């Protein structure tokens, strides 16, 4: 029976020759992930149920990234609980302040996810790793707890939407613009319960950082996972990071999709999502009014990677952000942070009047490090602009790429660059 990429990975991990849409399966996991917010709930449930062992100490990742460096006593207590659990069960991939990164920037960088693998994470943006040709999806804490014990999870086999990409991006148009464009087109539930599978000759011009950004926001269209066909760019990225055998899965030529969407990358424009849903997109060339901003955030699991830092620096070099604007730049991992220092990006950011911080999810979810007051407005390279997402319920978040966010920070209002 013909299968999509996602279906093939699920079938393999369920020990089945084939699976079909809607089938309920139990599959073996290659990685189970949690962070400092979701892991404590999982650990409580794990303990409450009386479990005393984990399935594989090398296949669990605990990353302290949301409220770290700890913002308050309660957050510190939650991290301590994770640290104690990791110590007790000798969990190999425990990342704390000093060696951590934002989980979805960190795991690919460390080679913890390989093409063809199956990963669940108690964080909705776990779908990021589909960029590597893995099947990866967000779950809750109870699923995480069960995964840590058994190394398995239940899945309902998803249908898929195929995105056939052609052409290449224009200058200053990035993966972020593409995924915002797609969410604007299909809506925040446009891919509900489904896979988003990215393929086509246009992939050749999409960098791994951009792929990670695109797959990251599959959940904002309601998708179960986003996945890219494995190619030379994937293999180049995993070389030297992944030191184990992996399998590459390609969709069958006659695989069935619920929808096929063709996109010419050269037609994608710089795009911004207006409050309060990611689907409220407009291209920057169509914004006639002055939308003044109080804050710009450049970072997160969506856009905190090296190419994001470089494009922001290119735009901010020898410039200064507008008076009255706070610009907060947060690299995704310690390695990216260090590379920013080595390449002179840190100096560019600080000279431009920006804050340049240690990795944290912080402001993206209104945790810390850049909360908005009532009536304030931010442009942000993060992934959600729900009511109250970054602070007060009367504040506003506009989602954009690092290029648009940096240009807007300089202008003091939402603007494109080109």
């Amino acid at each position: 029976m013909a299968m999509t990429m996602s279906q093939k990975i699920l079938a393999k991990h369920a020990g089945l020759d084939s699976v079909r849409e809607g089938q309920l399966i139990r599959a073996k996991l290659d990685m189970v992930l949690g962070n400092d917010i979701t892991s404590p709930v999982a650990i409580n449930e794990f303990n409450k149920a009386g479990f005393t062992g984990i399935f594989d100490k090398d296949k669990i990742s605990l990353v302290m990234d949301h409220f770290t460096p700890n913002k308050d006593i309660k957050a510190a207590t939650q991290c301590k609980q994770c640290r104690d659990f990791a110590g007790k069960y000798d969990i190999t991939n425990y990342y704390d302040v000093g060696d951590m990164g934002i989980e979805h920037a960190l795991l690919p960088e460390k080679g913890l996810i390989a093409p063809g693998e199956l990963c669940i994470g108690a964080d909705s943006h776990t779908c990021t790793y589909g960029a590597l040709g893995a099947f990866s999806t967000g779950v809750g804490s109870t699923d995480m707890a069960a995964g840590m014990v058994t190394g398995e999870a239940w899945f309902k086999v998803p249908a898929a939407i195929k995105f056939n990409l052609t052409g290449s991006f224009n200058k200053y148009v990035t993966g972020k613009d593409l995924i915002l464009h797609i969410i604007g087109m299909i809506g925040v539930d446009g891919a509900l319960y489904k896979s988003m599978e990215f393929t086509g000759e246009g992939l050749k011009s999409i960098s791994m950082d951009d792929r990670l950004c695109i797959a990251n926001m599959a959940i904002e269209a309601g998708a179960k996972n986003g996945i890219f066909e494995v190619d030379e760019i994937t293999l180049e990225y995993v070389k030297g990071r992944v030191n184990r055998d992996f399998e590459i899965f390609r969709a069958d030529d006659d695989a069935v999709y619920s929808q096929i969407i063709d996109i010419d990358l050269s037609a994608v424009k710089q795009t911004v999502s207006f409050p309060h849903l990611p689907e409220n997109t407009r291209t920057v060339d169509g914004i006639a009014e002055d939308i003044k901003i109080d804050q710009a955030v450049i970072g997160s699991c969506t856009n905190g990677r090296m190419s994001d830092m470089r494009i922001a620096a290119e735009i901010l070099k020898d410039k200064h952000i507008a008076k009255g604007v706070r610009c907060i730049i947060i690299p995704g991992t310690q390695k990216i942070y260090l590379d920013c220092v080595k390449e002179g990006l840190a100096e560019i950011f600080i000279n431009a009047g920006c804050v340049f911080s240690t990795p944290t999810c912080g402001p993206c979810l209104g945790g810390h490090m850049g909360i908005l007051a009532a009536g304030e407005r931010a442009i942000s390279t993060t992934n959600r602009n729900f009511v109250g997402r970054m602070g007060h319920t009367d504040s506003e978040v506009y989602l954009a790429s690092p290029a648009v966010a940096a240009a807007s920070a300089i202008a003091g209002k939402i603007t494109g660059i080109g």
Partner: protein
Amino acid sequence: MKAHGTVHKYGDNVDTDVIIPARYLNTADHKELASHCMEDIDKDFVKNVKQGDIIVANMNFGCGSSREHAPIAIKASGISCVIASTFARIFYRNSINIGLAILECDEAAKDIENGDEVEVDFDTGVITNVTRGCTYKAEPFPEFIKEIIGKGGLLNSIKQ
């Protein structure tokens, strides 16, 4: 098993950030989470909710974050059941895994209004609007999911 209560009605795309804002995620305590349930969409929810009440909403309920704190807060606030046209998939999974009853029923979601008195029969999937004297039929759970719920949630089911 049945639920019976007064309806708290919401619209499309009720996200997990309004169900339980991230500023309260520095705790996993169920009662404390419940004390902030729905705070950013309905400030009076916590004041008004009674044990057994029912939430009804339209499309894509529970979209956004994977935080299990969202169904935990709803359950711990006393809500006996959530009915919606559709649910975001992680929220749907989480609810089943922690034993919060949820039903997809577009007809009920569209028809039921805030304050209606509603009864739900989980064995048959029949939803009765007591206030307006009509019934709706929801899809009952697949066997696999019934088994998880029957064993008292995912962790108890794998333990057995």
